[in-house]
């Protein structure tokens, strides 16, 4: 019965979010495809690198200090670009806030929770919605890159970007778990959206400032964004520390979310 219930809740989430998912996925795919058209050819890399080196430190920090020295490195910037991050953030904020707090806020939780659904099933189905949607979005991003690399020879294989999109998926799945926890503590979707977006923004700014300002650089590990550096992942794969930190955060957040929803009034 548990699997059937979760599948039913997943279909419910699909019906609510499929249009948003389609729009974000297409936008990300097109964005990554366009980047392959803009990426420097192997014989242009040195020129583009010189140009990027002239950027102010604030801009370099925003797009990644490890400036592209290859077409692949340039394309990896696309997976850390604010546009890419904002769309993934929008997905996790939307779905994680809708799963529990959103239903409570508009009153539809009465219809759901008066059915034979265990409360942890709301958390698990919400997290699966976040994770599956993220997988679709990053897969579309990767398809955009792969399609671009198929139409243009840049000397880099699309398979090299699999660790990058996996890292993006893992980072935002972690944010989704945090969003689920926030949603289990709040009484409506608006509060959850504001809180989760606020935490995301603070974490992003902390990582950004800590990269620029040495005195607080020790604080950088406190930001989840510290554990997602697309160009580093492109060059060296997903670090074990990243996997450990993000997966532990997911597990702790989900357990805390289940504890919170079990103790609260709906």
């Amino acid at each position, binding site marked *: *019965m548990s699997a059937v219930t979760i599948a039913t809740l997943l*279909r419910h989430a699909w019906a609510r979010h499929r249009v948003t998912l389609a729009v974000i996925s297409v936008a990300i795919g097109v964005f990554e495809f366009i980047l392959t058209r803009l990426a420097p050819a192997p014989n242009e890399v040195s020129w583009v690198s010189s140009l990027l080196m002239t950027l102010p430190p604030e801009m370099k920090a925003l797009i990644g200090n490890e400036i592209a020295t290859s077409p692949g490195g340039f394309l990896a910037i696309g997976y850390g670009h604010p546009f890419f991050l904002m769309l993934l953030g929008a997905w996790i904020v939307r779905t994680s806030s809708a799963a529990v707090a959103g239903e409570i806020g508009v*009153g539809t939780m009465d219809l759901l929770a008066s059915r034979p659904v*265990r409360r942890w099933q709301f958390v698990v189905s919400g997290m699966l919605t976040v994770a599956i949607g993220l997988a679709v979005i990053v897969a579309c991003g990767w398809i955009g890159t792969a399609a671009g690399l198929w139409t243009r020879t840049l000397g880099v294989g699309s398979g090299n970007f699999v660790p990058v999109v996996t890292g993006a998926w893992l980072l935002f799945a972690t944010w989704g778990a945090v969003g689920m926890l926030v949603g289990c503590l709040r009484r409506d979707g608006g509060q959850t959206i504001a809180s989760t977006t606020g935490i995301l923004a603070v974490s992003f700014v902390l990582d950004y400032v800590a990269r620029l300002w040495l005195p607080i650089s020790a604080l950088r590990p406190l930001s989840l964004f510290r554990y997602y550096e697309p160009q580093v992942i492109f060059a060296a794969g997903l670090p074990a520390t990243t996997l450990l930190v993000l997966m532990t955060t997911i597990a702790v957040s989900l357990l805390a979310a289940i504890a919170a929803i079990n103790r609260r*009034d709906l």
Partner: protein
Amino acid sequence: MQAAILTQGLGKTYGRVTALEALSLRVESGEVFGFLGPNGAGKTTTIRLLLGLLRPSAGTGEVLGRPVGASGTLTRSEIGYLPGELALWPGFTGWHTLRFLERLTGRTAVDRDALLARLGLGGTDLRRTVRTYSDGMKQKLGLVQALQCRPRLVFLDEPTKGLDPLVQQSFYDIVTETRARGTTVFFSSHILPEVERVCDRVAILRAGRLVAAGTIEDVLASQRRRVRATFTAPADTSALAAFGDVVARTGTSLELLVERARVPALVRSLDALPLADLTIEPTTLEEAFLEHYR
């Protein structure tokens, strides 16, 4: 007979606000139980406690023989619920809503088609999204989702809100048939004539406290009678005030509220006066209800 609902000292507080205080109630299986009270009396809180949506601050409760609580999935598979403030997903069609809630209940919606026909929700309506529905159509959809899987117990919170008189009539018939099939109906309302019409027993809630419970006859019997006496000539009726509360008095008429047990003695006293007419009205549920709120 096993009680469908049994509570003992059930209470709910929000900080310093008491929403429900020490509710002890027994609802028998197969009856239609009216739960009366004005807005804010604690009716919805009681239902939400019994469904396990709220955690009780005090006391215990059983629904269909099992303890109330968030973990009561087996119990909730046998329950239907129409919320007082019904909220639906505006982007879903009526069909989608009913099928989704059927799947979530885990039981086949054996009564759906019959209910839709009785309440006048057609296929065209059901193919439209809920955001295009009137309040009455939403309420009909809410009634169907609550009853479609033939529950053993159904909580109906203000069920006729937004329904036109013709549909209300159909709804009362549905309640009667639902009871005839053995379903227990917990009917929360502040519309007294409909409660008087469909319920076997009632409970009256005031500011979170139970103030009366029993069959409608029991509740009415415990209420005072309205006695109106008219005289052929001006009469000294001052002694009659001892029988109850004087509501109105003129030289040739008197209106009193009198305990039922004292009515015979009052009638004997009236015999000595120039009585022209006498009416003794049984109280209605509405009067009984208002009496508790004076």
